[in-house]
C-alpha cells in the first residue's frame, strides 16, 4: 500500500505514474497484495482477446479472398455468375424458308411518345418535330400534344439514329419506348403463308397466328418448307395468268408428294403484309365444287375397291338420267362406250357417274372420308382454314353420281392437292404441312401401290391425249386432270362463270411433286379461241410453272434426243 501512497513524483511520459517501481520488490513487498499480479492477468487477457480477435479477422478475410460463393442455406438459390449474354431481346422468332432465307423477321425500333402536361411550349415542339418528320404535319402533332392525356404516341417505329437526332433537339417531356417491328422482306411473296401481325405485334393471320405460341416462346428461327425461288416463279406465272385471263382470283399449291411438305403456296389477290390488311386465302379458305378433278378420286376408288377395271367400258352414248331431277350430260361428249382411260381423257361426266354408282354410296363415302374430304385439315399450321361441304345424311343415287364428277361436294384447294398426292405417291396420305420435315413423316395408307401406279398411267394419258395437252412439258412426264366447274351464284349455277382447276404430278414415272392450279372466273378471249375451260387457262399456266420450276427443283429430265428412245419412254405409260 505504501507504494500507492508514496510521494508523488514528477512524470515525463503518460502512464509513467503507474509504472511498477522495481525497487518495491526489493523492499520485501507481500506477493498476495502485489498489484503486478492483477495487472499481468489483465494484460494477458487483453492480449489474448486481441490476438483472438485479429486472428478471427485475418482468417475470415483470407477465407473471403480465396473462397467461392456458397449459398447460406440449402433452400437458397445459387446465384449464377454474370455471363456473356447473346440474346436479341426480340419477342418474335424469325421465319425462314427451307434454304434458311429469312422471310419474316423483327427489327428493334422505338416508339416516340410524349407527356403533354410536361411540355410547356407545345407549338414550338410541334413545329420542331414536324420539321424533322416530313410525314407528320404540324397540326397533327399539335392536336396530339393538346390532348388532355397523361401520355400520347407521336410516331411509332422510329430508328435508333432518329432517336439520337431527337435527343439532340433537347425537348423535355418526350418519351422513347423500346419496341420491335415485324418486317416481311419479300413483301407480297409469302403474304398468305406468313400472314401478318398488328401494330402492337399481335398475330392476325397465317403462320404468325397459327404458330403464335412457337414464335413467341422460342428464339430459334422457324424453318418452313416453302422455297423462295419456287414461290417467286409460281407467283409470277400465276399473276401473269390472272391478268391474261382476267380472272378474279387464282391459287397454286406445290406439294412434295412423299412428305406432304408444301413447297409453294400462292393465293391471288394477295397483300403486302408490311402495310396492308390481310385478305382471304383462296388456297385454304375457298370451298368450291372442284368439278372434273374429282374424277381422279372417283376412278381411284373404283379401281381400289375392285368394282371396276381398266378394260371395262361404260355407256356414254346418251345423257344419263339418274333420277327425275338428275340428268347427267357430257360437255362435248363422245357419245359412245368409254373405258376408264377414255372417261378421264374426255372427262366424261356420264362415265364417271356410272362408275360412282357402280362403287356404291357406302364405299364412296368411306374412301372420300379417307381422302380427308369430310373434315377440316386440323393440323395445318396456318390459322385460316375451312371445312369442306360434305353431303350429310343418306346419299341418294343423284348425290352419289354427281359427287363422282365433282359436284354436290365442295372442298378447298388444299384438300384436293393433299388427296391427289396420296393417289399418285403409292397410296399414302400425308398431312399437308408448311414446316420443313427433318425426318420422313408417318403417312396413312389409303390406296394400294398398284392402284396408284394405274392412276399415274391414266393421268399421263390425260396430258398426252386429253385436255391437259398444254401442260405436256417435254422431259418432265406431267400427268394430271383438268376440272371446269360452273360456279354457283345466288344458289344457281351461273352458266359461263367457271372456277377452273388443274391437278398435276411430275414426273409421272416416279412422282415427286403435285401441283394444283385454280383460276377463278377466267374470261374467254381470242387467244383462247373463245373457250374458258380449264384446258385453255389453268393447264397452260401449270405447264409454264412446271417447265420453269422443274429444273429449279433439280429434277432430272427424262428426255432423249434419240427418237427411238423417246418413243420407248412414252410407251412406258401405256396401259
Amino acid at each position, binding site marked *: 500500500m505504501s507504494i500507492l501512497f508514496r510521494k508523488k513524483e514528477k512524470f515525463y511520459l503518460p502512464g509513467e505514474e503507474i509504472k511498477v517501481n522495481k525497487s518495491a520488490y526489493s523492499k520485501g513487498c507481500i506477493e498476495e497484495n502485489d498489484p*503486478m499480479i492483477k495487472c*499481468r492477468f489483465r*494484460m*494477458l487477457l487483453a*492480449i*489474448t482477446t*486481441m*490476438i483472438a480477435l*485479429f*486472428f478471427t*479477422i*485475418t482468417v475470415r*478475410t*483470407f477465407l*473471403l*479472398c480465396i473462397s467461392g460463393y456458397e449459398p447460406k442455406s440449402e433452400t437458397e438459390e445459387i446465384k449464377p455468375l*454474370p*455471363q*456473356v*449474354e*447473346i*440474346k*436479341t*431481346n*426480340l419477342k418474335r422468332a*424469325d421465319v425462314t424458308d427451307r434454304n434458311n*432465307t*429469312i*422471310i419474316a*423477321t*423483327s*427489327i*428493334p425500333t422505338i416508339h416516340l411518345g410524349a407527356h403533354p402536361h410536361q411540355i410547356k411550349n407545345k407549338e414550338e415542339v410541334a413545329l420542331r418535330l414536324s420539321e424533322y418528320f416530313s410525314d407528320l404535319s404540324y397540326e397533327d402533332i399539335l392536336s396530339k400534344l393538346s390532348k388532355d392525356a397523361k401520355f400520347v404516341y407521336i410516331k411509332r417505329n422510329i430508328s435508333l439514329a432518329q432517336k439520337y437526332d431527337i435527343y439532340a433537339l433537347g425537348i423535355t417531356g418526350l418519351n422513347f419506348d423500346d419496341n420491335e417491328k415485324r*418486317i416481311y*422482306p*419479300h*413483301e407480297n*411473296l409469302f403474304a398468305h403463308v406468313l400472314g401478318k401481325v398488328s401494330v402492337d405485334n399481335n398475330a392476325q393471320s397465317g403462320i404468325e397466328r397459327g404458330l403464335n405460341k412457337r414464335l413467341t416462346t422460342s428464339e430459334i428461327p422457324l424453318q418452313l418448307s416453302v422455297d*423462295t*425461288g419456287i414461290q*417467286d*416463279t409460281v407467283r409470277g406465272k400465276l399473276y401473269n395468268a390472272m391478268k391474261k385471263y382476267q380472272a378474279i382470283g387464282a391459287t397454286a399449291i406445290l406439294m412434295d408428294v412423299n412428305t406432304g411438305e408444301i413447297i409453294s403456296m400462292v393465293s391471288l389477290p394477295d397483300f403486302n403484309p408490311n402495310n396492308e390488311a390481310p385478305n382471304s386465302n383462296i388456297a385454304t379458305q375457298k370451298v368450291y365444287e372442284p368439278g372434273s378433278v374429282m374424277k381422279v378420286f372417283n376412278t381411284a376408288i373404283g379401281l381400289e375397291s375392285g368394282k371396276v377395271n381398266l378394260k371395262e367400258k361404260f355407256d356414254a352414248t346418251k345423257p344419263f338420267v339418274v333420277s327425275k331431277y338428275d340428268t347427267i350430260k357430257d360437255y362435248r361428249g363422245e357419245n359412245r362406250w368409254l373405258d376408264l382411260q377414255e372417261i378421264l381423257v374426255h372427262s366424261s361426266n356420264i362415265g364417271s357417274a356410272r362408275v360412282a354408282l357402280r362403287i356404291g354410296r357406302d364405299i364412296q363415302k368411306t374412301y372420300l372420308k379417307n381422302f380427308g374430304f369430310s373434315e377440316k385439315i386440323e393440323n395445318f399450321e396456318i390459322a385460316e382454314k375451312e371445312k369442306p361441304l360434305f353431303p350429310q345424311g343418306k346419299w341418294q343415287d343423284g348425290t352419289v353420281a354427281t359427287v363422282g364428277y365433282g359436284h354436290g361436294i365442295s372442298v378447298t384447294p388444299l384438300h384436293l392437292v393433299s388427296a391427289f398426292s396420296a393417289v399418285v405417291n403409292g397410296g399414302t396420305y400425308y398431312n399437308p404441312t408448311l414446316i420443313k420435315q427433318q425426318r420422313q413423316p408417318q403417312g396413312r395408307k389409303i390406296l394400294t401401290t398398284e392402284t396408284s401406279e394405274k392412276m399415274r398411267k391414266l393421268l399421263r394419258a390425260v396430258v398426252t391425249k386429253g385436255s391437259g395437252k398444254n401442260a405436256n*412439258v*417435254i*422431259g*418432265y412426264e406431267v400427268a394430271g386432270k383438268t376440272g371446269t366447274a360452273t360456279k354457283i351464284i345466288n344458289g344457281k349455277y351461273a352458266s359461263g362463270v367457271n372456277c377452273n382447276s388443274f391437278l398435276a404430278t411430275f414426273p409421272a414415272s416416279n412422282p415427286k411433286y403435285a401441283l394444283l392450279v385454280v383460276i377463278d372466273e377466267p374470261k374467254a378471249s381470242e387467244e383462247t379461241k373463245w373457250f374458258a375451260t380449264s384446258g385453255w387457262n389453268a393447264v397452260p399456266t401449270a405447264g409454264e410453272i412446271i*417447265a*420453269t420450276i*422443274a*429444273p*429449279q427443283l433439280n429434277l*432430272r*429430265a427424262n*428426255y*432423249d*434426243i*434419240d*427418237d427411238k*428412245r423417246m418413243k420407248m419412254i412414252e410407251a412406258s405409260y401405256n396401259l
Partner: protein
Amino acid sequence: MNNIKSAGLCVNVILVIFVAFAMFGNFIIKNSVESLEKELKSINESINNDVKSIHILKAEWSHLNSPERLRRLAAKHIELEPAKAEQIINYAALPFEYEDNADPRKATARRNISNIANENRELRRLAKAQR
C-alpha cells in the same frame, strides 16, 4: 512480464499486418470484380447492339436477295434464261465426232454443244484478258 507483453504486441502487430494485407487483397479483388462486371456489362451491351445490327442487316440482306430484284439484275447484267429439259441430255445420247451424221437432231445437238463450248472458251479468254 515484459516478455509476454512484447510477444503479445508482436503477435498483434503481425495479425494487424495480416489483416491489412488481407483487406487490401480483398479491396483489390472487389475492385477488379467490379471493373470486370462493368466490362461484362459493356460487352453485353455491345453484343446486344451488334445482335440488333446483325438482325437489321440480315433483314436487309434478305430484302436485297429477293428473287424479283435478282431477276431484274440478272436481266440487266447476264444473259441467262431458265434451263429447259431439252438442254439437258443423257450422256449416252451425246453425239460423237466418229458417229454417222445422218440424224439431223444429233447434228443440231452437236453443233449447239460445240457452239456453247466455243462461246464459253471465248468468255473465259475475255475474262482472263480483263483481269
